[in-house]
């Protein structure tokens, strides 16, 4: 079997490491990049580079950020007493798009899932705990996905935070069970947010 030149093989290998890209797609993308005008391919390389170099994590909410503090946290017009907890930055964007939320966020960077070796210490639960008092947080809205791990994480947070006198709410059902927040339309997600209920149990 004839092998590809080393740099080509390397490009294919890196591509196939990306989520949702199998070996065949990796090959297709690699050869596409080698075929398009040089400038176009380099634009992608630069965009990757820029993003990696300039984007870090917000030290308060763990959203992606172009500095120590993200755009949401640095916006003085936001309501600091309400925090919406999401699994990842994509979900934060989905909730921003509804236009229904004026509080701040907390990005867990995952959900609790022993099968995947993710416990409470691997998600940013303790960091949320530490924000409560200094920021004067009165309500925590848990907007994890409506699947098994999302519900378990919501309940975990409720049990962790309630003893500290914070109201913990959950976005309303109505989102398809097992569905993904980021794919819900703005209207549905907006309604789920407005119709949130206090978590019991």
């Amino acid at each position, binding site marked *: 079997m004839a092998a590809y030149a080393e740099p080509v093989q390397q490009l294919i290998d890196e591509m196939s490491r990306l989520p949702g890209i199998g070996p065949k797609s990796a090959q297709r993308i690699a050869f596409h990049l080698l075929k398009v005008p040089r400038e176009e391919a380099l634009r992608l390389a630069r965009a990757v580079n820029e993003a990696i170099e300039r984007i870090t994590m917000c030290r308060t909410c763990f959203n992606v950020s172009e500095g120590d503090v993200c755009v949401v946290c640095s916006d003085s017009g936001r309501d600091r007493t309400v925090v919406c907890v999401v699994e990842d930055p994509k979900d934060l964007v989905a909730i921003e798009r509804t236009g229904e939320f004026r509080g701040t966020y907390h990005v867990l960077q995952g959900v609790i899932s022993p099968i995947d070796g993710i416990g409470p210490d691997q998600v940013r639960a303790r960091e949320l705990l530490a924000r409560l008092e200094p920021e004067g947080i009165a309500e925590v809205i848990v907007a994890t996905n409506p699947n*098994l791990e999302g519900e378990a994480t919501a309940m975990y947070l409720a049990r962790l935070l309630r003893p500290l006198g914070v109201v913990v709410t959950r976005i309303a059902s109505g989102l398809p069970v097992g569905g993904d927040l980021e794919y819900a339309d703005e209207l549905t997600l907006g309604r789920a947010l407005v119709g949130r209920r206090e978590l019991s149990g």
Partner: protein
Amino acid sequence: MRLSRLVLDEFRNFSHEELSPAREGVTLLRGANGQGKTNILEAISVVATLESFRGADSSAMIRQFQPSARIGAELLGERDHLVDIEVVLTSARTRAFRNGNLLKRNGDIVGEIRAVAFFPDDLDLIKAGPAVRRRFLDDGLIAISPRFGPIRSAFERAARQRARLLKQVGGHLTNDLELALDVWDDRVADTGSRLVAHRENLCGLLIEPVNDIYQRLSGESGTVSISYTRSWEGELLDALVQSRREDVRAGIPQLGPQRDDLAICLANRPARSCSSQGEQRCLALALRLGIHRVASEGGLDTVGLGPRSDFAPNGDPPILLLDDVFSELDPIRSAALAESLPAGQVFISAAGEIPSSLKPAVALTVSSGRIDR
């Protein structure tokens, strides 16, 4: 929906074969053992549930030296409405197509047709451990309504999460762990209680048909009792909380729906220990036929899975798959079975003698991976 055509490409020992079964009544598959009769029944079970009734994984169903296998099924509904189902198996994954469109979730074809299978290993329903009987109930519920599928997988995932947590903690119960276990106990109890409610309802629904069928097949009047045996008492959540210390110490869950059993008795004696081999075979067959009858007659509201019209608008009974059933029964019981087969499409494989009262609508011969009329 009725199965009007089945096409097998590189499936098991078939390179390319197709068959058109009887729309109603028996399609008989004859041929010596090892020629591929069971494989045809298996292919139908895959179209119905995306799983082999033999529990084989997809790589086992692909013909040797081939990259993939394909099962095509033409389904005929009311007013000759046609649906084309295609299942493509590779060792890595299974993909399903409806009318040429790749389905986002494979589960979307489950329930287009339903199937109930009886195969020689079903003697295990009486003789083997509880896992076989739990699977019998769960497979039965899926044959009744595909809605049960997500209920079962929700429980299985929750139970796996909790079991993994127990394994990870190394025997020590800390405050942090108490909090994490609270959460998973709750999820397991929530999904597990639903699962068990459906299993218990099904047990109740099976008693009458299984007794009727058993008496018809065996000619005996012994009463069959079927009862679900929980591995805990009271509410599942309370039981999980109570066994927490023991669970953590042992590193594995001590109770729950994954440890339950189905107690089957004949004339008040456990079928496993007291019945003869012939009685046990007869009983296993009656259990499967009982599922078929419950699934044909509806009764789904009582299983709590919603109205029957939601998934079987044309009211067709599930396809009944009987693998090598006559070699398992003596001539008298075989004749009784042939005379009391249910309505709908029935596939029977037979290597040897068949009772003279069996009147197949279509008879096919299967020999070294070829199907002939």
